[in-house]
């Protein structure tokens, strides 16, 4: 034990910059990965309850260790390369999906100006990172040399591109009202004396709904999970993946879901602000727990959708995106502009 401690001290004192960088990297990643594991467990449990069955209950107390067992199983499995696949791209694809989805977490604030990087263009950075992830899916589909995977990749590309537009517009409306691209400022702009009626969900109600639905579509989750399309194209873009690369795709998908679940409250539901007036004592106190509670609600909504809805057909998703969401968002961006110009909404405390 002493030798390990000594080695640690030696490492930190010899490479101070490297240790600093590693620490900063691990600080957000470890809770995120554990969060993903807990979320997978929660999803399986909730779907189990909704489906009159038990969900995982054998590994660890309440089956809590089930996800960890699954992860270790996947990491120990052989990685099978499909015949005539492009091996380099085949292995690059999961990483290409994973890195942007983790990088996006850099700008997520959990309190006033408490973020790994409190960047001024945080919202722009987020948009850039979430759009990068789709390349991983397209590369995976192409490199697998499988028709199912190719179909899944094509579907995913078209779907993500079209929903990006609607999502972008709903973010623009938030930007107009808040007057800042800094996520921390956006939350602060929602503070006020009226508690939850000061948040942006009220003036931007259609945008709020569209944002979350687009978020579900962007992360390829039911009922928009055509890129995976279990019963049509088997597993879509990752049909040929096994072992660790598959685990990486899995991790990416759930990290993205948690990201969207955190962004929805930050942009529309006042982030860490309390829904109750400040006079309520502890309940009125803002804090990271409010953010987590709100994010938990959205994460559970994801699971709820998956447990109850049938899957859209690919062209129907396109129709919903282009013919319904984009027109609504364009109109509401204009409405948001008017609200700001005529001062119908007050922002900031």
């Amino acid at each position, binding site marked *: 034990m002493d030798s390990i401690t000594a080695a640690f001290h030696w490492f930190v004192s010899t490479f101070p910059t490297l240790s600093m960088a590693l620490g900063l990297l691990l600080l957000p990643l470890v809770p995120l990965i554990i969060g993903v594991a807990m979320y997978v467990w929660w999803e399986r449990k909730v*779907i189990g309850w*909704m*489906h*009159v*069955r038990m969900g995982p209950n054998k590994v660890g107390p309440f089956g809590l260790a089930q996800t960890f067992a699954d992860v270790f199983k996947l990491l120990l499995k052989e990685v099978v390369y499909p015949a005539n696949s492009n091996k380099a791209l085949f292995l690059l694809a999961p990483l290409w999906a994973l890195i942007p989805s983790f990088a996006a977490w850099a700008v997520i604030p959990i309190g006033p100006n408490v973020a790994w990087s409190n960047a001024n263009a945080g919202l722009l950075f987020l948009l850039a990172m979430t759009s990068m992830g789709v390349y991983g899916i397209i590369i995976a589909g192409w490199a697998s040399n499988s*028709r*199912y995977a190719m*179909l899944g990749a094509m579907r995913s590309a078209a779907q993500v591109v079209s929903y990006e537009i609607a999502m972008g517009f709903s973010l623009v409306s938030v930007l107009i009202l808040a007057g800042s691209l800094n996520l921390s400022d956006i939350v602060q702009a929602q503070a006020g004396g009226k508690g939850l009626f000061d948040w942006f969900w009220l003036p931007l109600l259609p945008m709020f709904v569209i944002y979350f639905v687009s978020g579900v579509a962007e992360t390829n989750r*039911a*009922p928009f*999970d*055509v890129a995976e*399309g*279990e*019963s*049509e*194209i*088997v597993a879509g873009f990752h049909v040929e993946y096994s072992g660790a690369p598959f685990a990486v795709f899995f991790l990416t998908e759930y990290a993205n879901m948690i990201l969207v679940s955190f962004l929805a409250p930050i942009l529309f539901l006042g982030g860490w602000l309390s829904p109750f007036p400040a006079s309520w004592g502890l309940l009125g106190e803002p804090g990271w727990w409010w953010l987590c509670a709100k994010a938990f609600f959205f994460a559970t909504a994801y699971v709820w959708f*998956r*447990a*109850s*809805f*049938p*899957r*859209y*057909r*690919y*062209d*129907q998703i396109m129709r919903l995106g282009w013919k319904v969401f984009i027109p609504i968002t364009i109109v509401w961006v204009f409405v948001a502009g008017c609200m700001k110009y005529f001062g119908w909404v007050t922002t900031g405390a």
Partner: protein
Amino acid sequence: MQEIKNYTMNFGPQHPAAHGVLRLVLEMDGETVVRADPHIGLLHRATEKLAESKPFNQSIGYMDRLDYVSMMCNEHAYVRAIENLLGIEAPERAQWIRTMFDEITRILNHLMWIGSNALDLGAMAVFLYAFREREELMDCYEAVSGARMHATYYRPGGVYRDLPEVMPKYGESKWHKGKDLERLNQWRGGSMLDFLDAFCADFPRRVDEYEELLTDNRIWKQRTVDIGVVSPEQALAWGMSGPMLRGSGIEWDLRKKQPYAKYAEVDFDVPVGVKGDCYDRYLVRVEEMRQSNRIIQQCVKWLRANPGPVMVRNYKVVPPSRVEMKDDMEALIHHFKLFSEGYAVPAGETYAAVEAPKGEFGIYLVSDGANKPFRLKCRAPSFVHLSSMDAIVRGYMLPDVVAMIGTYDVVFGEVDR
């Protein structure tokens, strides 16, 4: 510039929506299906040929294994064919029991169908809800025959034995105890008929539950309305039957048109579709579940009031009781002959069909007077329906093919036989 060509895709036999071992070779233009070529034969067990090599009664069990989701209906067609040739008729009570179990089987089949069709279209919940009810009906199978699927309960001359007086209960286990166990056993206090009564009273509410998740669901409607339209002319030309035919608006139901067992004496309606799309067939099958429930209630009522024999007392065909065999030489000989040689069926040929849940299931039986069939031919509805696959799904998209396979309700046990 390179020429853009259509590509072919292998759909199955290892595919989540292949419903067993369907292999479809699809020619695709992007996501649109240009040609669909079903390949069958991956589950072929030569049932028809096997039946030629063994005494009549020993093939009843094979019938269960044809369409393994509607077991007793297949048995019914087979024993009716034998009874036709032998010129015997089952006692009235046996006929009522058969009617009741045919309808239980119909519900079993439609529950399986609604679950797997919903699962194919991405709605997971319905599948598990349907299996909850399926479990109860499977217990009825188990209570009368000892087997949960392959019952071999119908016999030429009646049914194997009368309905049990006691419905088996769940035992205590690590998972089910106390209140939970009580809830599981609350219908199981009395006889099987009491159990069915309780089930039938509860079942319409359960069907409402599935309908709530699907019938008015916008996504479900988008996925099924105007998908896989089968015109009435097409339905007739392809020889469709059952819900596939009724979904296209043709009122044809063997239970009404050529009543067998006690269908002439029970009161029920035959639902008919209008457009012939996947949604109409969905509605038809859901309504059939409700109608089957009605029939079961009527059968339970009759069976409660009228005890009696469930087997003919013709010992050339039906084994005598164990009690008689103890002190009757004749009975012992009959028993020995029946279980070694079987019985001889007079020469002749016959076709007996029943309205199985999937459509008309028929047995064409030729006997040359021996103790084995000379030739047996099964007319399986799934086989007939599947042959229309190419004509129906052309021009639809890949996810619609999955929806269509779902409403065909194919089971490969009977397609390949």
